[in-house]
């Protein structure tokens, strides 16, 4: 008996399959592109193929992410807030605060030792502090998004970007290049800009981080510059799981398993 979690985000669609012991059997990450239903099918097919499973082997499927209601055959749709909390707790059990920076959302989530969310905050209707922001900046710098993650090495960190808005920041980056600013300094400034936005969100729900081990998930967790900048601004160590982009899908698979096995019942109705 296997359990499947699908996290359909704006940039990637992630699938995780777990077994009855909650062990990860397979995972797949594919770009979402313009048609998220196609991405869901592809991501699921890739993971199923890797695991050597067929649909009948799957006891329950839980979807999460912004496209969670577009996943066919789901047992339930659960928000990425709950799923990320569950997923990271499975991978890094000490964690009590998760920073997730995905394509269009960034969020901070505080939870207890069972993965029950105690508080959360999310970015508002603005791409500042998200993967989209970094994508736009990589485009302005004419570098690959993977390459961008390394480019701040050796920077003195003296350059500050004044624009929070993604569109204006892109113009600012273009102006800085034209003015001869070093790329590593620009990238360090961008990283601080993202970190600054996210640290406000974290502090809003957790003013004191001294007793809250922090981890990070989402594709931006691969960007060591942003992680370093966040660590500096929050003055904490941030743990990163081996595959930070599958945390939401893993959480969804864990929820699927719990519900299928009759665990983790919701609180009774109030009447």
């Amino acid at each position: 008996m296997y359990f499947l979690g699908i996290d359909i985000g704006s940039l990637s669609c992630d699938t995780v399959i777990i077994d009855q012991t909650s062990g990860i059997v397979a995972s797949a990450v594919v770009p979402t592109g313009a048609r998220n239903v196609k991405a869901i099918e592809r991501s699921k097919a890739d993971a199923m193929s890797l695991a050597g499973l067929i649909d009948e082997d799957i006891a329950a499927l839980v979807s999460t992410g912004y496209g969670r209601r577009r996943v066919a055959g789901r047992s339930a749709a659960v928000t990425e807030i709950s799923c990320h909390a569950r997923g990271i707790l499975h991978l890094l059990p000490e964690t009590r605060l998760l920073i997730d920076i995905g394509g269009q959302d960034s969020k901070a989530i505080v939870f207890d030792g069972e993965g029950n969310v105690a508080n959360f905050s999310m970015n508002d209707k603005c791409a500042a502090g998200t993967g989209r922001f970094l994508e736009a900046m990589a485009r302005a710098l004419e570098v690959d998004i993977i390459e961008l993650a390394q480019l701040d090495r050796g920077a003195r960190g003296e350059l500050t970007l004044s624009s929070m808005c993604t569109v204006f920041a892109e113009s600012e980056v273009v102006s800085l290049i034209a003015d001869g600013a070093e790329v590593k300094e620009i990238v360090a400034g961008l990283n601080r800009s993202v970190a600054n936005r996210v640290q406000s969100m974290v502090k809003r729900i957790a003013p004191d981080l001294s007793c809250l081990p922090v981890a990070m998930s989402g594709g931006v967790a691969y960007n060591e510059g942003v992680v370093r900048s966040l660590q500096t601004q929050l003055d904490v160590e941030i743990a990163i799981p081996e595959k930070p982009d599958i945390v939401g899908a893993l959480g969804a698979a864990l929820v699927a398993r719990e519900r299928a096995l009759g665990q983790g019942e919701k609180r009774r109705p109030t009447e």
Partner: protein
Amino acid sequence: MLQQFERTIDALEAKLAAPQGNTPRRRYALEFARLGKRLYDGRHPVAWCGVVAPFDLLNAMGFTSCFVEFVGASLASSGVVDTFLDRAEQDGLVPDMCAYHRAVAGAAALGMMPVPQVLVATSCPCFAGQATMENLARLMERELIFLHVPLEQTPEAVRYLVDQLESMITQITALTGRRLDPDKLARTIERSNRAVAVIEEVFELAAHIPSPSASRELKDFGIAMPLLFGRPEAIELAQVFRDAFAGRIRSGGGNGVTKERVRLLWIQNRIQFREPLVKMLEQELGAVVVVDELNHVTWDPIDPQNPLEGIARRMISNPFNGPIESRISKLQALARRYRVDGAINPCNWGCRQGAGARGLMQTGLAEIGVPVLNLEVDCVDPRSFAEGQLRTRLEAFVEMLEAKSSPWS
């Protein structure tokens, strides 16, 4: 606007006459469409006002009175607010300002607000409301009467406001020739008191577990009902809600829409345009808005023989007036009375009342175990409505509440 209100009245009357069509919310909508018609038909003397103006007193003087934000809400709910917001921006109002007032400014500039006989601004609840009234007075070439509502309920403060109310009456008489008949005012206040007594019964019933009130049934009720105070319709309308709620409780409880799993308090004002989220909360997640912050009677019955003092106390007692501690203690009282699991603050974009103290309100409710979800919504301008993000936040909030034990267990 007149045609819009007339069409709404015709449609609602037809629905109310149909079998099973007589619902409290339709009766409510009908009464406020009728109020809208009276404001716009040119046959009634009109007073445009601030939110806490003494509407029953103005009714007793023969005015159809209304707070101007009603216009912003009506334009938003009828889906035509964009034109008026655009006009306000063209006239120089910044888009970061509260859209209730931007809509009013746009409506006035486009000739969609009748020129009133009287303009009565109130310092409570907000400065944007005062500025809007000042602009209307300039545009419509009318004198502005201003009531400064003191922040605390001391005998001196009440006297100070009573003096202003007396001056207001004198000023209105000088401006319009309309006099206040003390006997008529006493009868009006008696009707206000009777309406408020029935409203208290409605709120008592709504607090029942499970609540007989559906999430949208008492939307805007507490802020809008004072517009009818002193008129028989206020009593009749409150009775319709009371009888419906009592009937639902007698027949097994619940609001007939959903099985209540989570009880919510809605802070400040609702989203005025059509949106799917409150319905989603209720029907998909069983999360019911059982009380709104302004569905709260915060004053004692008013002595009909000495009405101005009671009216002054009522104005001062508004939850948005005075120190934030007072507002927080009122929110805590509501949370306890209705035994809510959580609260939602839309933090209306551009509104200092909604957003300025959100952290303090969140902390105050957290002290009694009630989590608050702060959204960032423009409650009037649908163009910046990020449905997907808001849906995720609301769903996650309900998931979080369901995983917690009730603050009242």
